[in-house]
């Protein structure tokens, strides 16, 4: 085996006093050899990002300090370097890219200058040579028309293009090590697939060692040579990708891998005979942009959308960001007024009803949102949140509280916690509270707008189970909005795929997953990371 470019030995990073544990990272050891992609995988709080930042020498001063260990870059201990020496290493010998390409680039600087900045810092090239180097590296990450793109500002580029700029800046000096901190998490699946492909290609061509931080086992299966699994700041298991994914030795690794939803839908009882509860007909939502001086533009966020959901059925609405799936959800919950079309709730059209006429229909449709941290008013107790709706509709307070207690038990929380405030709960618990709040209204339709995408994979599985459970228990019609094909495959009876405001494909989950018809759906399925890998089927079992 060749000598590793990066060798982390017994790394321990101390948290500030009064944190919930002593060390952010404890006794972590792993290595990256040239041309190898090592994925560090773990849930939030596992210490994977801290590890990456420690290698880079970018730990926030005064908050996190390295207490023990060595970080060897080509045999050279980075922890003994002065800040000035580290500056010479960063950008030149180690490149780094980050999660949010939207915010990782300086918005007031031309992208070419941001790549050239690296050359500025580390080399003494002339203006002309520098420009040429920038153009070359932009071409090598497959940015179209580098000559034109070199002078644009970040906001003029798409998310994928920005991430390519980041990669170009990280690789312009041919570093021996590239650290990628969740580089595709903020991107759409299709873009993610392209960026992953690019990273594989660059590693091959330049023989760079890659330290890849991720929470997504699909990405791991797609790209990693070796995997390091972290939990609570410790490495629980590491090894070659196939070994770890197929023959995990550690119980936590097994739980994590098992929690990855499979892309093959399980068999589901048919609800085709149940009555239709919710139906949209030619639903349209158009936004007008532009003002007095600019030309008026129309954005069709939802265009001629026809859906129907039966009692006890879970309908998945799948699409990328900007596909219009959330717009449809918000129209159905009547948080916005659709421009045209009908929304039939048990036959009654609520699309254009005014505030007063809408009121009786309000309780029939309830919604659960994506962000558990913003879905509950931080200044009101959980009990107030759950009882608010029933009390609005005339239930007396005592009865409402009794009901809230029952619902808390139902969603798996302590009924005595009603007096507590949202910040005392974790993300998954908050999402349970939001589900309880929706159920308190005794609705017929539950709209779940990306309810698990902000949650860790193990929590995600539990919340999905809860949603499916309440669907069965209350015979609810559920409209399940998601961008995640894996999640859709597991919980939905039927699926509609949306693209640019339009429904491009519709069918039972089993049928759509087995044989997608529309070109867009096919492309979407092809981009799903780890699609060729069946998670949770371990060899020993």
């Amino acid at each position, binding site marked *: 085996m060749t000598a590793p470019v990066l060798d982390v030995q017994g790394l321990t990073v101390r948290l500030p006093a009064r944190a919930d544990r002593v060390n952010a990272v404890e006794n972590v050891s792993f290595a990256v050899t040239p041309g190898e992609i090592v994925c560090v995988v773990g849930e939030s709080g596992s210490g994977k990002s801290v590890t990456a930042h420690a290698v880079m020498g970018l730990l926030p001063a005064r908050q996190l300090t390295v207490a023990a260990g060595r970080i060897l870059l080509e045999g050279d201990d980075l922890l003994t370097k002065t800040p000035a020496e580290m500056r010479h290493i960063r950008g030149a010998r180690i490149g780094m890219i980050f999660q949010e390409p939207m*915010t990782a680039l300086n918005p007031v600087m031309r992208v070419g200058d941001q790549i050239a900045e690296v050359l500025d810092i580390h080399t003494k090239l002339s203006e002309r040579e520098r420009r040429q180097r920038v153009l070359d590296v932009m071409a090598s990450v497959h940015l179209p028309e580098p000559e034109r793109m070199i002078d644009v500002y970040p906001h003029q580029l798409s998310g994928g293009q920005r991430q390519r700029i980041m990669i170009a800046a990280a690789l312009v000096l041919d570093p021996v090590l590239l650290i990628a901190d969740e580089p595709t998490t903020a991107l759409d699946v299709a873009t993610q697939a392209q960026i992953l492909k690019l990273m594989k290609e660059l590693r091959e061509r330049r023989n760079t060692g890659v330290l890849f931080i991720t929470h997504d086992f699909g990405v791991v299966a797609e790209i990693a040579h070796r995997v390091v699994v972290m939990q609570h700041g410790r490495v629980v298991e590491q090894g070659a990708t196939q070994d770890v994914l197929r023959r995990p030795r550690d119980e936590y690794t097994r739980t994590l891998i098992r929690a990855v939803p499979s892309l093959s839908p399980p068999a589901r009882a048919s609800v085709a005979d149940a009555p239709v509860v919710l139906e949209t007909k030619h639903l349209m939502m158009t936004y007008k942009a532009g003002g007095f001086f600019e030309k008026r533009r129309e954005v069709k966020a939802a265009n001629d959308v026809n859906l129907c959901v039966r009692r006890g059925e879970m309908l998945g609405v799948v699409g990328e960001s900007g596909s219009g799936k959330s717009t449809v959800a918000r129209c159905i919950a009547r948080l916005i007024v659709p421009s045209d079309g009908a929304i039939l709730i048990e036959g009654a059209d609520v699309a254009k009803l005014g505030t007063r006429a809408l009121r009786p229909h309000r309780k029939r449709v309830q919604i659960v949102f994506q962000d558990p941290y913003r879905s509950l008013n931080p200044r009101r107790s959980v009990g107030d949140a759950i009882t608010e709706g029933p009390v609005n509709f005339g239930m007396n307070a005592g009865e409402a509280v009794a009901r809230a207690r029952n619902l808390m038990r139902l969603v798996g929380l302590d009924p005595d916690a009603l007096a507590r405030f949202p910040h005392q709960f974790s993300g998954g618990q908050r999402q349970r509270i939001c589900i309880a709040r929706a159920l308190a209204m005794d609705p017929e339709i539950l709209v779940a707008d990306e309810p698990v995408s902000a949650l860790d994979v193990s929590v995600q599985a539990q919340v999905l189970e809860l949603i499916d459970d309440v669907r069965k228990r209350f015979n609810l019609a559920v409209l399940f909005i998601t961008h995640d094909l894996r999640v859709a495959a597991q919980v939905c009876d039927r699926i509609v795929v949306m693209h640019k405001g339009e429904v491009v494909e519709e069918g039972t989950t089993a049928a759509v997953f087995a044989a997608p018809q529309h070109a867009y759906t096919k492309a979407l399925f092809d981009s799903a990371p780890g699609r060729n890998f069946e998670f949770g089927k371990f060899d020993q079992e």
Partner: protein
Amino acid sequence: MLTFILKRALSTIPVMGVVALTVFLLLRLSPGDPASVIAGDYATAEQIAKIRTQLGLDQPIFIQFAHWLGDLMRGDLGVSIFSNLPVTTLIGQRIEPTLMLALTTIVFSVVVAVPLGVLAAWKAHTWVDRAVMVFAVVGFSVPVFVMGYFLIYGFALGLHWFPVQGYRSPFSEPGQFVSHITLPTLALSAIYIALIARITRASVLEVLEEDYIRTARAKGQAEIKVLLRHALGNAAVPIVTVIGLGVAFLIGGVVVTESVFNIPGLGRLVVDAILKRDYPIIQGLILFFSFLYIALNLVIDIAYTVLDPRIRY
């Protein structure tokens, strides 16, 4: 770009309209009768009636407003009751000291405050930062005339470094101008420096949390360049905004400072007019200062497009 400037310029029209209407109503609807106020305590009923006719106060309020607005459009701010000179002429005579004082203050404040704010952000939560912030909150709290008198007490009466009061034109006596304008500038700058230093510190600190700062560090950029090139560049918009909004404080401060240091500028003009109830002057100067403020903030709005490419034009 041109349409953007035009658009922004047009958008100030309703604001100026509101200002004009407010100033008009302010003086017409206030409980005191302007005519009898102007006529003085010993005026006869005829004298008051005469002044009322003279000012057009006997006409319906809409007609008064229309007349007044028409005059305003032609750049006519009315005539002083006591000196019988047009208000525009008076403004022309008195504008130089005020303009000079405002300019020296703005330049001095920005030159001192921005580096102070950046320094405080860079050394955040250290004694350097705390010292700058204590200085800023003190500067924000000591009233400009108290500051003026303390300065006179120390540097003019005590040390005799500067004259106690007065003004000299920079065009005829540059040396004297400097020694006369120093203390007023210092007194007036305190609040402005405090304001700008605080916003600079806050904006730079906020920008330092951004992901692209981490990116710059990951490139191996030196801390000082991260601060000046990336952080300050992105903090420029809020800083410039506050410089513009701070002009409102500045205008109030100029009026007081000119009184303390006996500078014959617009501030003294307005104070004298108030004491004499010369109300066309009061009205004219309030309008003048408001329009100046609106114009300045318009220029700053346009400057944003240079500072931040994301702002569309």
